[in-house]
């Protein structure tokens, strides 16, 4: 396929070259042709330009561009064609065809090659031929895009030729769009005009909208409805795109909320304990990432792209162990007094925050993105950054893994048993204090994992956790406890709702509205979306 493409192009070049030969001039090398550029009348030089193009030499495109821009100079002594750079005198000269530096030349020893409009037109046609019919699909694509931006009515014929030859569907599409833009700016007949409007409308992005709006302002009355319909089409599409974009932002926010809240949900579900220090566990996870990255940077810089893979288990262990220590050291003495647990863990959160502030300083710490998490990609017109994308994936993986732990392991079974009926679970021989400690460790460990993820999109500072704690409470309260699906649905709902409210109400008001919504929702369903049923509720 590629080969035939290649062949066709070269056959064409040869044909063009043959035509040029029949025109009278003998076939000459590009170098010779270029040397003839400064001399003769404009019409002769236009002929030379088309011959240069006919050679199909890929270097010629840049040279012709420079010619049209009036940047070509001839060194009077040697006849070399050069482009100049630098300031003052002498200037640095570069061979216009080969791009090789030929050293400094005095300003007086060169002369600019003059161009007029007819020569420029000849150059543009020649460059269009060179690039639009180049063997390389990328070059053709670039050329077609450039023509789309330029939207010059004179390009229509050139594009017609190229479209007739084009095989690559993607390039063909851009060429047709470029042709449509050119037609919109010319005095084409209504049928061609309408077809062009359709082509542009099919493109459907903001740029297309701009083109059509510009066309509308200068269009005749008889084509106005066509354009207006096209504009309406694009606006409909853009509105849909906005919805898609908002859904994505919402899902992305929801994933962050899910990560932050899911650990909270299991400790709350199993132990009925609100862990106010949960946000600080997230923060510690982020700082662990910082330390791991520092270590890797210092010792194994080649592994930097994998630093997050090392940070994940490290953060899970660090925060999980701290969580178990907190449970054994403080919380187990406070069972049956959930409100006081809330206060004690708040106190712990203050201590942890201040300890981190004392150790690492109050300012933000730099955590780097691995190369595979930088940048973004385009998904049907929605720009998606890689780090957000991976965080959504990561949140879902953590969710699935946790679900698996709860459903398939002995610890999970015991945790569910204790959640449903602690006394009965204890009677069946489950060591509930051990289950509590493990649950707390697991919840804190997951907070640590969330911290690794959040270190990629948020500032790593001692206040990192505080920003998420109230939101994660809202997710847990909204989703209900004792069921992880509640947390998932809660996080995603709140995330998407928030992002849909933001354009209308602004970020702050959206958050306020959401809080009010949750406060009202709790009136209706005091135990959240996925409430536990049965006697456990009134325990």
């Amino acid at each position: 396929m590629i080969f035939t493409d290649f062949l066709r192009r070269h056959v064409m070049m040869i044909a063009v070259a043959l035509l040029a030969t029949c025109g009278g001039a003998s076939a000459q090398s590009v170098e010779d042709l270029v040397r003839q550029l400064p001399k003769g009348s404009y019409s002769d030089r236009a002929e030379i330009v088309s011959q240069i193009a006919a050679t199909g030499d890929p270097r010629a495109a840049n040279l012709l561009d420079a010619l049209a821009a009036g940047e070509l100079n001839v060194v009077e002594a040697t006849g070399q064609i050069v482009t100049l750079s630098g300031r003052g005198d002498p200037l640095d000269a570069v061979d216009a065809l080969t791009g090789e530096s030929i050293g400094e030349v005095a300003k007086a020893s060169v002369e600019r090659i003059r161009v007029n409009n007819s020569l420029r037109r000849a150059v543009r046609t020649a460059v269009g031929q060179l690039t639009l019919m180049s063997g390389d699909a990328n070059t053709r694509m670039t050329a077609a895009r450039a023509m789309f931006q330029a939207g010059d009515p004179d390009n229509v014929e050139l594009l017609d030729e190229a479209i007739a030859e084009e095989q690559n569907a993607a390039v063909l599409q851009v060429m047709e769009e470029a042709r449509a833009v050119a037609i919109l700016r010319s005095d084409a007949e209504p049928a061609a005009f309408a077809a062009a409007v359709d082509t542009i409308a099919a493109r459907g992005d903001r740029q297309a909208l701009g083109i059509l709006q510009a066309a509308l302002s200068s269009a005749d009355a008889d084509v106005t409805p066509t354009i207006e319909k096209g504009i309406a089409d694009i606006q409909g599409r853009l509105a849909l795109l906005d919805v898609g974009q908002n859904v994505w932002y919402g899902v992305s926010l929801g994933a962050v909320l899910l990560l932050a809240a899911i650990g909270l949900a299991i400790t709350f579900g199993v132990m009925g304990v609100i862990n106010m220090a949960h946000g600080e566990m997230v923060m510690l996870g982020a700082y662990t990432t910082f330390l791991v990255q520092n270590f890797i940077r210092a010792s194994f810089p080649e592994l930097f792209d994998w630093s997050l893979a090392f940070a994940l288990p490290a953060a899970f262990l660090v925060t999980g162990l701290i969580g178990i220590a907190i449970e054994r050291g403080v919380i187990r003495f406070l069972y049956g007094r959930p409100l006081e647990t809330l206060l004690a863990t708040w106190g712990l959160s203050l201590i942890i925050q201040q300890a981190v502030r004392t150790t690492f300083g109050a300012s933000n710490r730099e955590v780097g993105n691995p190369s595979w998490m930088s940048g973004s990609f385009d998904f049907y017109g929605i720009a998606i950054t890689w780090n957000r994308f991976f965080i959504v994936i990561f949140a879902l993986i953590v969710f699935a893994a946790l679900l698996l732990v709860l459903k398939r392991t002995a610890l999970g079974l015991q945790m569910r048993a204790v959640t449903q009926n602690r006394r009965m679970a204890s009677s069946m021989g489950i060591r509930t204090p051990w289950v509590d400690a493990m649950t707390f460790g697991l919840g804190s460990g997951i907070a640590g994992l969330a911290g690794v993820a959040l270190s990629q999109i948020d500032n790593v500072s001692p206040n990192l956790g505080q920003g998420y704690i109230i939101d994660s409470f809202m997710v847990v309260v909204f989703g209900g406890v004792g069921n992880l699906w509640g947390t998932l649905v809660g996080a995603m709902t709140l995330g998407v709702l928030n992002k849909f409210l933001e354009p209308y109400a602004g970020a702050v008001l959206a958050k306020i509205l959401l809080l009010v919504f949750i406060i009202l929702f709790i009136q209706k369903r005091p135990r959240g979306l996925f409430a536990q049923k049965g006697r456990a509720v009134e325990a």
Partner: protein
Amino acid sequence: MITQLFIRALGARLYWVVGLLLLAAILVPVSNLLLPIGHPLRVPNYMVALMGKYLTYAMLALALDLVWGYVGILSLGHGAFFALGGYAMGMYLMRQIGSRGVYGNAELPDFMVFLNWSELPWYWWGFDHFWFAMLMVMVVPGLLAFVFGWFAFRSRVTGVYLSIITQAMTYALMLAFFRNDMGFGGNNGLTDFREIVGYSIQAPGTRAALFAATAVALALSFVICSAITKSKLGKIMIAVRDAETRTRFIGYRPEYVKLFAFVVSAVMAGIAGALYVPQVGIINPGEFAPANSIEIVVWAAVGGRGTLVGPIIGAILVNYAKTWFTAAYPDLWLFALGGLFVAVTLFLPKGIVGTIGRYFEDRRDTKAARASETPDLPVVRPEKPPVRRLPGADASPQPAE
């Protein structure tokens, strides 16, 4: 009979507290205003304002104790009522500035001129009048508490769920007040006050008067709280705290009991906020921060919840410690505060006053038992809840009990 003893003990305490507060209300201003500067017994100016601030905090802690200690509602949003009262007072004080602001606009406060507002928003109307502002100081927090409590208590939102949504309430209010277009001065809040009811707010006389007013207000709140808790209603409040479902089955309506306590407490917090603002000279949305509201809880916890005297002592002690720490060891204050949270919940669940009270009760019981010359008689301890054992010692812990 035992109950009567208890009431009498509290009665004695009531006279002591009210007497001390009234004494302070007289002595501090007298010493500050009449004694010459440099006199060893003179209370310096800054100390008057500082003590006034502590007393407003004490009032706030007392208000919280009424709902937490007696009805079992752990409100993590009491800072919101305090701040709303403060804002109502601040709005009155802003109106008193008149045309003496930076922009010299008699119609609009400075920040509104700065933000290009053309006229006074409707919710600022009436705040030129002191009586209206004082009415709003009580009505706004009371109304919010009534609406919030009406919904929350009727649908039986209890325990940590209630705590979390009260926190959400104050958080939402904080975000709202940070917005410039709310018309409350955005993140700068209200400040640069000049006069209160015609007297310069900076003058030592005004400050002393404000201190005296705060002490009297606190004493009055204490009397009201004592009256409520000692009444039959107070007994039902305690019943709701200890066994809400059972109280409901007996035939009471716990939601109304809770609502009553919540609204009274919110109004009290609002008054405390209104007294706080002129003494501190500023009110800004930071007062709504959830962390502030949780700090109030620790004042009450340190002093001893469910004791009325405890929160007053706790608020003064903790805030004195805060003043001292933030001056001497600013980095250590959060460690100390955090440690206080943990230590109080672990080791002093009844707070200072509660623990001391228990000690005296135990001693009196022992004495009574000895005096009765019938050593076989079991010692009856009044109003003592069963001691909760640590898990592992006997049955497993029961969450959300």
